[in-house]
């Protein structure tokens, strides 16, 4: 960005919540406490179910479908963000979410009673539908919780598991590709309107580049981390047909519930996505 705007605008990255914590980033950018920020919008689905479009389980289960879903949802999300004083620049998919267990799981019936780390309403609902027991664990305590059996399962990306060295406590990773959450990068609208058109174009250009690079990186990193999990002794595998069928059924339930909650806008997105 610095180069594209001849140094008029530079971006200093404060990573890993070193400035505002993740939960606060949207609010901080909305109210001008920070000019630009990055956040998994699906975390805000309590506020508006539409934000959760990228986390509806088993709706878009590969990078291609994820891009299509995003193309269908983007105008609506841009509109909602605009009402919240935010301008969406771009969004990058995160690696797909798979299921971690400490035993073999071949069907949803095998999941009954497993303590499942759920961190929001959607993951709690997923636990409920699969017969698992949702438990709430602070991010910092997760690996301790797995070690001591306070939690026995989670849904997360291969990357998260790899960073957590999850193989120290868990044994199985199922590549169910439940969803690909998106990290959205947005700017405060007042700040954005103060930027000249030429600079806006330069930043939009950078954004497209970054979105492309981000997607490419997510694809490659997924591959790398899954190999890493396997190299450290975890069973990394696709779901059995039975498991996949069970999960797809739950996915349909949750899609229907999501559509009901998200109203006409939500239905329009799903229809547009299915039409592609």
């Amino acid at each position: 960005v610095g180069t594209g705007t001849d140094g008029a605008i530079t971006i200093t990255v404060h990573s890993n919540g070193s400035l505002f914590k993740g939960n606060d980033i949207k609010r901080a950018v909305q109210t001008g406490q920070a000019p630009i920020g990055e956040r998994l919008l699906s975390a805000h689905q309590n506020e508006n179910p539409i934000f959760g479009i990228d986390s509806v389980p088993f709706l878009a289960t590969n990078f291609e479908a994820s891009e299509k879903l995003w193309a269908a949802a983007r105008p609506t999300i841009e509109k909602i963000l605009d009402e919240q004083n935010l301008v969406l620049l771009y969004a990058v998919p995160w690696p797909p979410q798979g299921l971690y267990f400490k035993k073999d799981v071949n069907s949803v019936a095998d999941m009954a009673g497993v303590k499942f780390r759920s961190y929001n309403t959607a993951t709690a609902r997923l636990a409920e539908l699969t017969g698992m027991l949702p438990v709430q664990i602070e991010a910092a305590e997760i690996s301790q919780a797995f070690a001591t059996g306070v939690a026995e399962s989670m849904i997360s990306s291969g990357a998260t598991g790899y960073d957590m060295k999850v193989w120290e406590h868990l044994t199985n990773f199922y590549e169910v590709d439940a969803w690909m959450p998106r990290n959205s990068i947005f700017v405060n609208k007042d700040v954005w309107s103060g930027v000249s058109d030429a600079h806006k174009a330069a930043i939009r250009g950078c954004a497209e580049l970054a979105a492309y690079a981000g997607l490419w990186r997510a694809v490659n990193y997924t591959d790398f981390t899954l190999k890493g999990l396997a190299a450290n002794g975890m069973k990394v595998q696709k779901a059995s047909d039975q498991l996949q069928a069970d999960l797809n059924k739950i996915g349909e339930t949750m899609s229907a519930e999501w559509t009901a909650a998200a109203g006409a806008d939500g239905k329009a997105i799903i229809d547009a996505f299915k039409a592609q």
Partner: protein
Amino acid sequence: MLRTLRRVLDAIYLAGGVLGALFLIAILGLIVAQMIARWTGQVFPGATDYAGYAMAGASFMALAYAMNRGAHIRVNLALTMMGGWRRHAEIWCYGVGAVIAVFFARYAVRGTYWSHKLKDVSQGLDATPVWIPQLLMSAGACLLALTLIDQFLRLLLSEHKGVEGERDWEDAPGENRRTRYVMAGLFLIAIYVPVAFFKGFAASVIVKTAMFLFILFFLLGSGVWVGLALIGVAYFGVTGFTSRPAGDAMITTIWTSSSSWSLTALPLFIWMGEILFRTRLSEDMFRGLAPWMARLPGGLLHTNVVGCTIFAAVSGSSAATLMTVGKMSIPELRRRNYPEFMTIGTLAGAATLGLMIPPSLTLIVYGVTINESITKLFIAGIIPGLVLATMFMGYIAAWHYVRPDQRPEPEPPMPLREKLWNSRFLGPVLLLVFAVIGSMYTGLATPTEAAAIGVIGALLLAAAQRSLTWASFTESLLGATATSAMVAFILMGASFLSLAMGFTGLPRALAEWIAALGLPVITLIVALTLFYIVIGCFLDGISAVVLTMAVIEPMVNIPAFRELGFSMIWFGIFVTVVVEMAQITPPIGFNLFVLQGMTRYQMTYIAKTALPMFLIMVLMVGVLVLWPELATWLPETARQGPGG
């Protein structure tokens, strides 16, 4: 008229404290309910979020109450040197305090209003509109501002001397109203000028940094309460280095940090200590331990160390450990003619184990600040705590052989059967230790849940001993509420300061600069030890941790450290040792203050008796550097424990 107003105001502050105490009980209820739900396979959605709100409620509502109880801490060294001019210095403190508190309250209300307007909703399972729990923040912040203005005006207009516990001074004979007004006016100008000057202030980063540090040291050094001083200096950090709205950013950060669920362990462990202090536990511990210690070289002095070690395993603070153990051991050791120098010194030093052996308030604060697992930190503290206790006992044994002239009459021998029979007095406390540490180690409970188990255990123990009365219950509850509000307030200020530090970019620049120097890791650790010893002379442990971690973490959380075994878990234990030292170094050392109150000795004398213990702790830093596994091994094995 005035008297009615006074009574109404005092009633409002007390009501805030009582409400805070009720929220503390709510935390306990929520944690217990959630724990039982998990054990029985039930689900209690949002329990942790509600516990977080209750935590915010307990902290904010009790801010003003804690202020009036004199629970908020500050560096009062300069204040005590003011002599007859103390009133003017206090006018400064309350004046600055009131200005900062009004700023805080204004933005708390504004932040709550904006949460309502933006329809901000909790991201957790509870999906609560954020403004509802934030009303507690607004109300509490307004109460704090009110009480500071109240105190400021009373200092200015009457012979009132400020909050409880800070009234041991007399006005100079010539002191009069006019000098007070002139001073107050000057102070307000002194506050206004930098505030106006710092906005959009153009200067080099070095000049700004120097001013930032000056304001930090000046606010803290002049006796402004730590939490308020941190907010004040962070304000200058944000306005001086960025064009961001300081107040809004402050509230965003403070709300998140103060409504955190992992923080709920803090008030619960404090409460547990308060309950146990009011039981017969200290007498029982002495009776159970004394027969076993009597024949060791150094005799009953060991009851100080062993008693502190055991009590440390149920108490998170050094002061609580000191008071509980000292209540019994000081009179008993005196009666048996042990030299005061040894009695006082070993007690002052050993009580600091309260911070190292889990549970530990220092480690909770450290873990929350750098987002590290509190369970792991707790487990990491066990071995170093026991090593340190052994070293303290070694010192006592050495005294026994070096100074045979000081040995008191040996205790009459006691048959083994009687010794064993006397050990029954240790039963309840050991049971409590196993419940608290055992539940965490086996994964039956998280640290917060272990704290809840501890509170209930302590209440049962008190009930069994018939020392649980309505008076002792409410005293312990209100005391814990005030203390935890004090700690929470420091954490709030620190979270804002750390945001400000992030905006300034100073920690990162400093870390890069240090990395560029290419110093050996050992040199850096020695430098950090000296640094912490120096600031530990002036700051209490928790303030020292929260104030420095924003700057120190990027410096030490690097591969070069980790490769040598100095992980952030290890660093937590290192910080705990240096914080332990801070408890016994003058001029500001909590254990020194507590012992001064208990024994009426001069602080310089108490500090002298504690010097050997201080040196042992310096040695302990060396031991930790040589064998980092002492801290890191146990959490690693616990990780591969029951889970396989």
